[in-house]
């Protein structure tokens, strides 16, 4: 128990320290911009399919469930805004962060972890390379672009998927559905969701990097670190989402 608490404290401390180092190392030399672009490509291509598939199905399920059940108390006409609010404020950013985050971050852990156990990180250090700038900062910067972008797409696909299923299954009037949705949904609903996704992208990437850079114990340790990243990312997103929601509700309402 004591060992567990100590490891947990070390982990939080370590992620905190890494975050500090990243913020102090944001000024990249111009030749590293290529790395940021490369990471954006890797992350984006890796995750677009997963993010959109999850978004369309979740959007359809949430919308149809809401419709069937809200019909019981005669509120089916409000399904559009309800589904849109849920998707824009929560489902879009959170699902994207968990799915894309889990995939991207565990990939980062595997890559940096194998560099760690084969001493390639130390090799960079002995060659006078700032490994935070070389390996971590470009990935964090890429996440700042990729996560909000994918969330925008997931939002759109989710909302449109919901609308499509309403038309097909419930015979909804698409114009009316769209009008009532846009009447009740305001930019703030969309923007707080995007704000969340920016935050999620950063912590998810930092978790992946930290676990990779601190991999110990050869190939076996590498497997453990990668699995740990998936768990840390999922929990990190779910828990921080609660606090972000509280924060945004206080700030913007």
């Amino acid at each position: 128990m004591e060992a567990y608490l100590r490891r947990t404290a070390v982990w939080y401390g370590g992620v905190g320290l890494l975050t500090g180092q990243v913020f102090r190392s944001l000024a990249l030399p111009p030749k590293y911009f290529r790395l940021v672009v490369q990471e954006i490509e890797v992350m984006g291509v890796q995750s677009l399919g997963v993010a959109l598939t999850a978004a369309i199905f979740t959007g359809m399920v949430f919308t149809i469930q809401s419709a069937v059940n809200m019909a019981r108390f005669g509120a089916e006409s409000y399904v559009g805004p309800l589904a849109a609010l849920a998707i824009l404020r929560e489902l879009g950013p959170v699902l994207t962060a968990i799915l894309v985050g889990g995939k991207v971050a565990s990939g980062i852990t595997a890559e940096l972890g194998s560099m760690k156990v084969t001493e390639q990180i130390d090799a960079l250090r002995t060659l006078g390379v700032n490994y935070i700038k070389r390996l971590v900062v470009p990935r964090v910067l890429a996440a700042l672009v990729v996560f909000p972008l994918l969330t925008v797409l997931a939002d759109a696909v989710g909302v449109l998927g919901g609308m499509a299923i309403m038309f097909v299954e419930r015979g909804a009037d698409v114009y009316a559905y769209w009008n009532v949705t846009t009447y009740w949904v305001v930019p703030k609903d969309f923007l707080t969701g995007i704000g969340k996704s920016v935050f999620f992208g950063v912590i998810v990437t930092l978790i992946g990097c930290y676990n990779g850079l601190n991999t110990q114990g050869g190939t076996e340790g590498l497997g453990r670190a990668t699995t740990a990243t998936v768990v840390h990312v999922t929990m990190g997103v779910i828990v921080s989402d609660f606090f972000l929601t509280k924060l945004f509700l206080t700030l913007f309402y």
Partner: protein
Amino acid sequence: MSEPVVEAVDLGKRFDSTEVLRGVSFTVSKGETLVVMGGSGAGKTVLLRLVAGLIRPDGGRLRVFGRNIEHLSEEELLPLRRRMGYVFQGAALFDSLSVRENVAYPLREHTNLGEAEITERVVRNLSLVGLSSEVLPLLPSELSGGMRKRVGIARALSVEPEMLLFDEPTGGLDPTNSKLVAELILQLRGGVCDTAIVVTHDVELAKTVGDRVAVLIDGRFGALGPVDAVLGGNDPAVQAFLAGAAR
């Protein structure tokens, strides 16, 4: 006499409950090769990593190139590290990059040299370690153990080091390759880089390349002095180590 390149006083290093180094003192002067011997797990790699500033000592003083490095930040250490070349036991080549890009790495990172100049230097460094330009496009996974070591040395030479740090340069090599690497280290010393610390448990290598040799026993230097005096002396702990290493 000029200031020593490395000056360690009473260095200590522990990991959790195990005390690996407990008071190691030595100096390395310009133009000298110090060989550090010791059994497996004696702390040889730890000592080398301390000198390169990859880890921090828990106690003692450590001056490298005339600067106390024990409290320097990673950022402050970077320029010092570029003055030394570290050759890792497992070579630690970047496995996603070709031999050419591995050796070119420090050049691309720290200089604005053009493509032609970079290629020229890469080829020159590879020829210094006895490799032809045929290996340029190969990936580290396509190389033999001995070749990987050589590419590791060539990459370390790319920073134009004033001191080389070798971790078990003959470890895992057959006798023929070991001999070649030993000769290579001797050659480098006469040319591109005259100062080195070589960590090994290979007695033959120590005799070939060392000016002075230290034997790490129980976290301390059980002996430190000219190669012949230490290896031919009658210190019982050293003799016990040599008897073990010879087996």
